[in-house]
């Protein structure tokens, strides 16, 4: 299998006044194409920070980040923005849907960054909503849907532009067990049937079981775990 992501000696430090806080000092990791990785670890261990580095919404202080063999840490701000639009789908804990838009319109947003016609966009949106099982909710606004439905709309939005990588930050953190399992099932399906590479941050061991492997992060280092492959 080929590596989709390769992190080499990544350092991330925040400067707060004179004080320097190192989140990662020399972090290296590889994620294969088609992997479904669960990231666990205590609060403040750097899970969200790592996800931001992988998704290009934040930059490493030092080190290299390769995606599909290309250095994304070298890209300019504008190039990185375009790269995100083409390659990464994001799923957040609190869904982050636009309240003024319907489910279908929310899902359509990433397609505004392509040059697809409105007709083609509508088709792709329908497909994405169908995959997450929400075809009948296309015209509902976020506040007219349950948390689980909203999260599935968010998943549809993440996959509609057909990115290789899905990044999920506690996607089930706000859902009950049954709903969480449905959402996780959807993610598993995307990984298994559509070959999406998924990195999912979670605090929930049951959620991590849906992944192919789990990494534990503590104080900026991966630690051995009985679940890690």
């Amino acid at each position: 299998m080929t590596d989709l992501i390769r992190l080499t000696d990544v350092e991330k430090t925040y400067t707060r006044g004179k004080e320097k806080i190192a989140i990662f000092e020399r972090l290296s990791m590889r994620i294969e194409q088609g992997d479904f990785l669960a990231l666990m670890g205590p609060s403040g261990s750097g899970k969200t920070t790592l996800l931001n580095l992988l998704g290009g919404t934040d930059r490493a202080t030092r080190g290299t980040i390769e995606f599909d063999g290309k250095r994304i840490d070298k890209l300019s701000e504008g190039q990185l923005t375009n790269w995100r639009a083409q390659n990464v789908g994001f799923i957040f804990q609190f869904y982050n849907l636009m309240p003024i838009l319907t489910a279908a319109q929310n899902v359509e947003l990433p397609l505004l960054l392509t040059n697809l016609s409105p007709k083609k966009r509508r088709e792709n949106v329908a497909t994405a909503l169908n995959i997450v099982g929400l075809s009948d909710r296309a015209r509902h606004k976020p506040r007219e849907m349950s948390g689980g439905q909203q999260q599935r709309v968010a998943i549809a939005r993440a996959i509609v532009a057909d990115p290789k990588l899905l990044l999920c930050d506690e996607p089930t953190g706000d859902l009950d067990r049954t709903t969480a399992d449905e959402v996780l099932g959807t993610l598993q399906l995307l990984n298994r049937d559509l070959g999406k590479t998924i990195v999912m941050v979670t605090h929930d061991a049951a959620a991590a079981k849906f992944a192919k492997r789990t990494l534990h992060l503590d104080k900026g280092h991966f630690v051995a775990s009985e679940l890690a492959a």
Partner: protein
Amino acid sequence: MNRITYLLAHILLGVLAFLVFTRVAPGPLFSAFQLLFFILSITLIIWRGINIGWRNWAWLILLIPVVNVGFLLFAPSKERFPKRNFIEITPDRSTTVDDVRLVRWNLARNSVRTILLSVSILIAFLLFGVLVSFNVAITDVRTAPNRMVTLSKINFTESLPIAYFDRVLHTDGVLAATHMNWFGGYYQDQRRGFMAVFAVDPDSYLRVYQDDLHLTPQARETFLHERTALLVPRNIADRYHWRVGQHIPINSNIFTNGTNGSHVWDFTIAGIFETPDGNSQANSVLIRYDYFNDTITFGRDRIGWISFLTTSATVNDRVAHAIDTRFANSQDETSTQDAAAFNRSFAAQLGNIALVVTLVVGAAFAAILLIVGTTMALAVRERTKEVGVLKTLGFSSGRILRMVLGESMLLSLIGATLGLLAAAGVLYILSHLNGGGGGGFHLYPSVIGISAAIAIALGLVTGILPALSAYRMNIIEALGRR
């Protein structure tokens, strides 16, 4: 109390009230309300005119706290006005999205706020459209470029000897000339019945103003031959339902009628005339000089001013110089100028309208700028998270900047369009109500052009800070940490 002092005092009072009460109850809704009240009261003063007594002062001073306290008591609280939208934000739920729709829907998401802001902008542009059109109407009366006026150098109310008329008429470069006297006329009521009555020499007047007055041949004949003949413009005739042949008594607030010892003269309507749009004679009521001169008890054989046409506008300066030097060092020195320049100085005597316009409109726009600017900034701050999401999805910062600017621009254009429509309506009503005073007000194309420029500038200025803050917004900070 002069109107400008009163206005200044009011603006000061308004700003003070604004500062005090926005302290007590801050918030965009309240600020917008304050602004509305402030602008409305200024408009009222302008409408009520110059004679503002202590009673109106008292009303105003009383009104400000009363209205404010009233608002505080009945202010729509968040509980009573839950986040409800009067208009559906996305009317067509089945449509696809694009940037323009996003802008429109974002603007509509808080409909109460948007409506209040549009109304504020509407009022500013209504004021602008009406006041500036009004100003243009009285200062820029359309006259031929070769039309000139000779009047007393001391003051335009000072008269000249009638002998001057012949000399002006026979000056080199003068094509035709006539003389006119201000009668100080009114019909029945001094204030409401005021009209611009001029005593003119019929024959020469109709020659000098032949292109300005549309008269029937019959009316023309009657005016040339009947001593008590009267010519009235269509708007005044319509206002009083006058018909040709009717006997009309007209009063003078200057002269006494020697034949009956009163201030009243009797006239017979010889004709009703129309004038081209915006013509200087649009509101002139015309009587004959001979009738006037023979019956007045003082000031006989004097004329108010001489209106004449030169052979061509290029000789204007030379003719003016020739006339004025001729009468220099005489009892009655003259001042000769273009009719257009004369009209402007005449309007300036009525009060410095341009200054009032600038003050009021300036105050309105300054207030609008603050209100719309802060509200837009608030609106974008509320949407910080959404901006973060859009950036995460791959929307460029430039595109987001354009969307925010588009929103403030759209708001400003909506307000300006509605304001100008309202202004057109108000001007239409004014010119139809007001038979005597001004007449023929309308929205000038130049006013529309300037309004469009102001609207764009307003949109840019109010949107640029929030747009830049959205542009600079960092994704991680925008999405927030939990």
